[in-house]
């Protein structure tokens, strides 16, 4: 069979599928449901590894009170800032007080990060203000600079006010940052947050540290902890993503479990396509024999069967993976735990790989039916 012939047969396979509209529709919906689940699970897995897998280029450390894992219990003296700044390899440091509306695992977490306003631009030059203005924020005591994901989730814009965890702020601007955590938090003035949350003025939750050279991330972390080893409040320092991985261990274990859901969805799709295509082959034994009589080789008959599986997979994949992306775009799910947040966002790469997987599953599931279709002697099939 030539490539041109293979191409010529595509409309025929499509027409055959439309012959049993209801059956095809049900099958496509089933595949779509499976691929929807799969794409959601994969999106979640991707979000987890994006927020927790430390990369070679990461330069941010989090300094936390040793053995305190929740922002409400980690307290470090503000004056540590100057000592940390003096440690070799440290490029920049910023004290942060974290206040969250919910310290456990939650789907809609509001995280305030109280920072000295003028220090933020120096510490994180990658943060860009897309709406409102940074100057406005620096001038406004109760101003908040909020991440774009958070803004979209809550439908907030500059000038709006909102309250969470007993803290009421006015939005001065929306920020976007390649550092994913930033896109889900609200930056506010440190003194304002300390007052609003009735925490000590000289205390913060953590320090974020930028190192000069990503290769020395662990070394600098060790040096910081060594400095405060015998201090009243000893520290525990680790890369930001490792910090998240540790803080949200339970969450990650839970999402790890969802891999089984993804696998289950994949197997269900396989079974569904195989069943549908097998049924098609059974009901078309004589028709295929007629095509063989016309001179269709086994390869063309098998290709026609395979095409039906592929088309089912394609349609189901488009609908399933597409609606998963749409769902994520609209609902913007954010997981959070102990002040760290993780957004599940739609990803075109994932959409494409979902589509590809659906195609592969469709093809795979119809290989056995395709073999069934060419196995019988022609004359026997004609006699049925």
């Amino acid at each position, binding site marked *: *069979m*030539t490539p*041109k*012939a293979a191409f*010529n*047969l595509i409309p*025929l396979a499509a*027409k*055959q599928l*439309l*012959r049993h509209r209801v059956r095809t529709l049900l099958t496509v919906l089933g595949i779509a449901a499976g691929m929807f689940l799969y794409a959601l699970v994969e999106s979640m897995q991707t979000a987890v590894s994006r927020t927790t897998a430390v990369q070679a280029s990461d330069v941010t450390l989090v300094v936390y009170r040793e053995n305190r894992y929740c922002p409400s219990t980690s307290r470090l003296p503000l004056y540590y800032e100057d000592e940390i700044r003096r440690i070799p390899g440290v490029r920049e440091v910023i004290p942060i007080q974290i206040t969250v509306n919910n310290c456990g695992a939650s789907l809609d977490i509001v995280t305030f990060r109280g920072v000295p306003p003028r220090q933020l631009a120096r510490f994180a030059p990658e943060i860009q203000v897309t709406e409102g203005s940074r100057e406005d924020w620096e001038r406004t005591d109760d101003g908040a600079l909020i991440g774009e994901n958070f803004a979209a989730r809550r439908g907030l814009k500059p000038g709006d006010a909102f309250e969470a965890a007993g803290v009421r702020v006015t939005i001065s601007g929306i920020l976007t940052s390649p550092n994913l955590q930033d896109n889900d938090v609200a930056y506010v003035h440190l003194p304002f947050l300390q007052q609003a949350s009735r925490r000590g003025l000289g205390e913060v939750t953590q320090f974020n540290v930028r190192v000069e050279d990503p290769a020395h991330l662990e070394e600098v972390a060790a040096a910081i902890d060594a400095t405060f080893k015998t201090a009243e409040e000893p520290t525990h320092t680790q890369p930001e993503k490792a910090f998240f991985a540790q803080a949200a261990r339970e969450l990650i274990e839970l999402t790890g479990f969802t891999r089984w859901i993804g696998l289950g969805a994949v197997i269900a799709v396989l079974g569904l396509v195989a069943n549908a295509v097998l049924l098609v082959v059974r009901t078309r034994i*004589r*028709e295929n024999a*007629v*095509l*063989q*009589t*016309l*001179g*269709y*080789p*086994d390869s*063309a008959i098998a290709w026609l069967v395979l095409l039906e599986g592929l088309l089912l997979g394609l349609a189901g994949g488009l609908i399933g993976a597409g609606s998963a992306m749409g769902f994520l775009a609209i609902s913007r799910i954010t997981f959070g735990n102990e002040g760290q947040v993780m957004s599940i966002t739609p990803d075109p790469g994932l959409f494409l790989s979902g589509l590809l997987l659906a195609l592969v599953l469709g093809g795979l599931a119809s290989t056995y039916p395709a073999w069934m279709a060419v196995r019988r*002697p*022609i*004359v026997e099939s*004609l006699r049925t």
Partner: protein
Amino acid sequence: MENDQDILIRCLSVTKQYKKGENLVTPLDTLDLDIPRGDFLAMMGPSGSGKTTLLNLLSGIDQPTSGSIEVDGVAIHALSRRALAAWRARQVGYIFQLYHLVPVLTAFENVELPLLLDDLKRRERREKVEAALSLVGLSDRMHHFPRELSGGQEQRVAIARALVADPPLLVADEPTGDLDRESADAILGLLQTLSREQGKTIVMVTHDPKAAGAASRTLHLEKGQLLEAVS
């Protein structure tokens, strides 16, 4: 039959056996048959005498248990499954009693089926399909689906499908068996025209003596052997 050049099909001691449970059925038993090019041959015989079996062997959708079948110099009994499929596509058109059109395809699309395997341009395919449909007198029914056609029209579409790749050999298994007299006569007339004007070699199985009368000669198949009818 004196001149080898004129022989299109030559069967030499062809035997076909089927296993039916424990029993061995032998519908064709060391059968010899020569069919000249351009012949319009009718084949009659009681039910179960092996007529369909013989057509299937001649058209290369089945292979003999022993013996040889040469069509236009090609030993089709020795061809591989794949080579046989390619051979069928060029050399034979098969016409079934029950037409066997694909119900989801229009008359045009049904006739187009054999051409989809070729590297033809869309326009070339259309021309061939239109020519075949016009030959069977169905130019005005091209875009009708099989369920919108009468039995006689369906059979004419099936004949157009058998003709479209211009094979030298047409085989027909009781092509008028399911039709009323009028439609049957139209089909027989069409086959006669194809034989006379296009030089097609036609082998037609029939139970109907009137249908056999349309052919240029009739053979009787009985107990796996052929008897020439003297008319």
